[in-house]
């Protein structure tokens, strides 16, 4: 089984947009991978004219919300940094280790990398002596914000279509649907950037090595 990797297009988001964007992307991916009996739940984004679909599993929703909160905390500590969230699907294989320990192996078969560039709000220039300049700056900021918002919405749509295309193009690597109840067919994990950049990178390398598939190193 191959491990497919999908690097999603980078999204430039502002701080207050992180939640909605991440919810949208994460739920969309999971909806494609929750192959159990699903009752789709449509959610309208507030900031954008986009409707995405959740799988309807409250556990999933809760887990995603927790991860988003953690990520926001991380962003606040590490401002102006490009960040990457990894959503991975894996299979659990029992690896029989020595008699005194059981090792559970996680065989990742898919990685989704959500690339975010959280932009700090550009600080308004110090108040000039002339009031009009301040006003102009404010107006420009509003204009810029609306332009950015529109660009982000377009990018978000692109990302969603990117997900759809990836799911459609690559189906062979998806493991057979396990015969079990529940919405979620495959276990997954959301990996956030850790406190230090280097550690984050090391985590990824470790995971890649764990799965033991050379193809993923591409």
């Amino acid at each position, binding site marked *: 089984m191959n491990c497919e990797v999908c690097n999603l297009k980078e999204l430039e988001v502002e701080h207050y947009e992180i939640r909605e964007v991440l919810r949208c992307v994460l739920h969309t991916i999971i909806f494609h991978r929750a192959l159990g*009996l699903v*009752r789709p739940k*449509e959610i309208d984004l507030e900031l954008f004219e986009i*409707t995405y*679909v959740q799988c*309807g599993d409250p556990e999933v929703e809760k887990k995603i919300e927790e991860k988003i909160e953690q990520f926001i905390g991380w962003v606040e500590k590490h401002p102006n940094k490009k960040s990457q969230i990894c959503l991975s699907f894996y299979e659990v294989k029992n690896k029989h280790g020595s008699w005194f320990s059981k090792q559970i192996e996680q065989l990742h078969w898919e990685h989704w990398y959500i690339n975010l560039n959280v932009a700090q709000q550009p600080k308004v220039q110090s108040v000039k002596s002339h009031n009009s300049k301040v006003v102009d700056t404010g107006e420009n900021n509003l204009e810029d914000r609306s332009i950015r918002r529109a660009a982000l919405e377009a990018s978000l749509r692109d990302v969603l279509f990117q997900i759809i295309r990836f799911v*459609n193009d690559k189906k062979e690597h998806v493991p057979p649907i396990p015969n079990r*109840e529940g919405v979620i067919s495959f276990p997954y994990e959301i990996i956030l950037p850790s406190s230090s950049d280097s550690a984050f990178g090391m985590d990824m390398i470790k995971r890649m090595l764990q799965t033991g598939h050379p193809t993923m190193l591409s």
Partner: protein
Amino acid sequence: MASSHSDSAKMEQIITEFFAKSLHIILESRSPCISSRNFSGEHIVSSPSSSSSSSSSVRPRDKWFNLALRECPEALENLDFWHQSNLEPMVVDVVLVKRVINWDPANFYPKAELFRNLSSKEVYSNCWNSDQEELGNGRSEKIIERWIVQYEARKAKDAGKGSKRSSSNVLSSIYKKSILLLRSLYLTVRLLPAYKIFRDLNLTGQIRSFSLAHRVSSFVEPFTRREEAEMQRFGFAPVDTSSGRLCLSVLYRSSLSDVSSEASTPMSPQLIPDYVGSPLADPLKRFPSLPVSRGSPSSLPFSRRHSWSFDQYRASPPSMTFSPSPTHSEPYASASNPSSSRFPPPGLPPHPPEVSHAHKYNANFDEYYPSPTFSPSPSPSPPIYVPGSRLSGALLRSESAPVNIPATKFLNSPTLFKNQNLPPSPPLKGTRYGPSMADKSMYPSRDSATVDKMSFVGRDDIGRPSGLKIPSESSANISYSRSSCRSFPDDFDESEYTCAFDVDEDDVTDPGSRADLFDKRRHVHDPLQSGSFMPIRKSQGAAVGALVDMLKKAPPLHQDVSNLATASQGSGSETWSNTFHEYCQTPKSISAQDGTSSVASSAFLVSKTTADALEELKGYKEMKNLLLSQGGTSRSRSVTNHAAAVESADEGTVKF
């Protein structure tokens, strides 16, 4: 063998259910009559619920592809009707239906229902057009999405490939891929532009000028190249099976911005009593505060009107219905409250082609004088700023001159309402007769005689309703002048008026009253008091003023005679004066005998003058004869001649 047989049967079933599921997914988000996304509302037992992940009852249909969807009767009906062999493609067209705004209240409200009902029925009959005709109104359709679901069967010899894998694995793999494909489909239908339209139609529940419909068929006309160029294609990766592959693709219009913008401004169902171009349309009403803010209130409705260009056939809110021109005039429809700003007079359906004119006109409004590009059209262009007060003032002044325009002419030619009766001065072309009629309707208390008298100048308004402000003086002049000339082309030569207006501009009387009348900031209450108007534009105002002046100066018939009698007092001999006096007396009887309507107060000014002139001529002949006879004879014969003259006069009397 048995297993393969059952496998093929299962495969067949998977394919069949795939068609059904894909249709369900598509129609669930494209058929507006489906129950809205109300997660907390009523649900069928097995319908999805947002919060609960597990439901005790799951319909068999839901289990297919592990996707439990909301109820979609349309999908089921269409599927039952459509069900063909799996080898037939299933084409689902999502159609955007735009209704041409033809304001017929009888038809309007049922339409919303009809659309919903038709969507499934049309599929049954697969005769879209016949149902369209039934509605009786023009509808424009545009296919905004075309979904194609098909199973491409492989050739028989290729079917054996890949059979090494266990059939169950193959089937489960195919099933898994189908699930993935349908998941993608479920997301994709919500990302395409048509979804927004569906949501707007579904959730707001307001009556729109557009609707979504669908048709399911196996064979459709392919798009023209042009149409296809406007569409984008998104194809899902096909699912390979042992004997073929399942394909799903969509052609969609990526830009539905015009409809989307409309959808963002929903209108509540209201009767639009007026329509542009009707005499009842009173554009001035829209801008009660125009004098205060120069065109910003005018821009407001127009900016909204912008969203419904005639291309879109969007029904406009009542306040905007001034602009479209009427297809027919109903000048005497019940008046709406005139005091409400921008409230249209009743009875006027908007006319889509006029909206564009309205829009153009609006853009020029601030300049006031419409650019020549705003050309007159045979159908009325929107009466945006028809100054009713001026018209009313001018018309009322005409009361002093009892000129009676035959009402029949006015009623039989509704197009005359549209065509302004003014000389073809470019700035005036945008204005229309409408507001006057609107005013007329606003004040039904005005007697018909007044109306008739008013109407000769082109059926302009009787008076501006209180609370209305005239946007500008010139606009009044414009409309007035336009209306006055054209209504009776037979009677008045346009060039005549042009010249007259140009000449008589200075003759427009009573600047004081003019100022009163056409003060933009004053309501026009009593048009009678304000006799004239101040032409801002020479061509227009002068035309109006001159006409009014003419009417004013035109004396009544009987007055003419008496004036003539008076004038003749100081001239001529007694005989002459007596004879003339007799002549003066006689025209009444003469005219009665003649049957000429010159004396009749209802006669046209022109006819009165002609008849009167004829009378005078005859009288002069008599006098001439008398004088000649008198002069030729001696005084002694004067008595005789006088008697003869009297006799001749009597004879003349008899003659006449």
